[in-house]
């Protein structure tokens, strides 16, 4: 088995919600969450809306502050790093978002969107950056001429390709994919999943793949962690969990996959 590249130990995160005149209500979004991601593999986080999947993704990348817990990337603790150090590390930790319509700046051209990370991190000269962007766009199935276009000129699937190019142009090591295919048609979904898989083996990427679709997870993931109300209730190899779920909630989740007629 490959070495662990990214791990989290005992993460806790509480949201405070103003509950009208009754004061403040606390919602535990993450409760003692621990996980390990192995280099070159895919760990899927599954669960229903509100189970804390997206909070977990954001906390892992230090986009949201944690209440307690530690996050290690290549043996280095990310908690307590200052902004400058975090920015250097973020180059290796990238994210692909769910909504390809909301996650691309409508006022930037595709070339600028994909190249922005290279500029921020000061990687290479302007011409090197440009050729890198072109190569990346071509790799995800777009063309050089698309650099001069704006996001609204693309379909949902193409926009998701732009989002992937933006994340991967920096040659990251860990990519957090937050429901990357749930807004797409099933035919486009298959294209994007296959693209993600190809890129994973070419670039030796490790994916943290957040999804509520267990059929998709079955295809893309090596390991899976099931979240329920802020806790990980079960985790392990995909094959084991799908064939022999131990937790009651996991069983229900698997039973609810459409296409089994088990519900009736």
């Amino acid at each position, binding site marked *: 088995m490959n070495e662990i590249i990214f791990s989290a130990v005992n993460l806790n995160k509480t949201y405070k919600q103003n509950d009208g005149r009754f004061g403040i209500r606390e919602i535990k979004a993450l409760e003692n969450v621990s996980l390990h991601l192995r280099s070159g593999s895919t760990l899927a986080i599954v669960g229903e809306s509100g189970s804390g999947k997206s909070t977990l993704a954001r906390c892992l990348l230090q986009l949201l502050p944690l209440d307690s817990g530690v996050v290690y990337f290549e043996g280095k603790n990310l908690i307590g790093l200052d902004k400058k150090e975090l920015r250097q590390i973020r180059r290796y930790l990238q994210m692909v978002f769910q909504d390809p319509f909301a996650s691309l700046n409508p006022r930037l051209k595709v070339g600028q969107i994909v190249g922005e990370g290279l500029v921020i991190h000061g990687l290479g000269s302007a011409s090197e950056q440009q050729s890198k962007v072109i190569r990346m766009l071509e790799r995800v199935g777009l063309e050089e001429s698309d650099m001069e276009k704006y996001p609204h000129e693309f379909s949902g699937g193409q926009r998701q390709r732009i989002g992937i190019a933006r994340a991967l142009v920096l040659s990251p090591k860990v990519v957090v994919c937050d429901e990357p295919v749930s807004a797409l048609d099933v035919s486009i979904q298959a294209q994007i999943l*296959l693209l993600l898989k190809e890129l994973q083996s070419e670039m030796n990427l490790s994916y943290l793949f957040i999804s509520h679709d267990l059929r998709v997870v079955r295809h893309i993931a090596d390991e899976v962690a099931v979240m329920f109300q802020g806790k990980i209730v079960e985790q392990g190899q995909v094959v084991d969990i799908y064939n022999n779920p131990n937790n009651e909630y996991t069983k229900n989740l698997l039973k609810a996959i459409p*296409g089994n007629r088990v519900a009736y």
Partner: protein
Amino acid sequence: MNQLLKVSDLSISVAAELDKQLVKNISFSLQSGKTTCIVGESGSGKSLTALSIMGLLSKQLKRVSGQIDFQGEDLTKLDGLALQKIRGGRIGMIFQEPMTSLNPVLTIGYQIGETLTQHLGMKGKLLKDKVDFLLEQVGIPSNRANSYPDELSGGQRQRVMIAMSIACEPAMLIADEPTTALDVTVQAQILKLLHELKGRMNMAMLFITHDFGVVSDIADDVVVMFRGEIVEYGKVNDVLGNPSHPYTKALLACVPDADGKKALKPIDYSWINEFKGA
């Protein structure tokens, strides 16, 4: 068998450019107590088909040909008022977004009752009892009748939508992606509920979805649409088990299975040119 709905030769165009056809000469039928699923990708014309049956096409679109026979009546010949009587009465409807299809400032009990007052003139105690009965039918305790939509979860809101749509005991229910916005466990519950209600009320269901898993769970017949045309139409076991059209085959090959045994294959669109030629 009792044929309830017969759509023949239906075409829909953009009103400003009549040669721009969005739905092209489609025909299918629906029997009482049966479920027909319309599947296809976004933009294939599935929702337009449903909207035109209910006479709810937007003004920018126009039905250019076709008949829609419902219980022996051609819906295309009816005026707005007559159609309004049928909608919510003999034809029930559920939409994708339960969050946006309910009025946030009215209680759910009022909104369910509105349909009954409108179509059947029910009032007072009789109305209240019927609303309570409907809520229980869809699995919401009747003491929630005074709740507002924002006090309910997504699944409960969709249950309220279902209660509204079946209030007048429609002969046919049109459901446009009713579970797409819901979690998978809630989806299973809602599908089960619709399935049970359909059996209990001998209702016909026209169910629009893009999820083949859902299709295999609930459909009797399947209509596969691609770019405004029906490419395949038949019994669920035939269409899913032994698809004859290359598009259906390609679309099925894109669906990940829960066993992970099947290799995913994106659609190869090269055959489309042949399809156009034929």
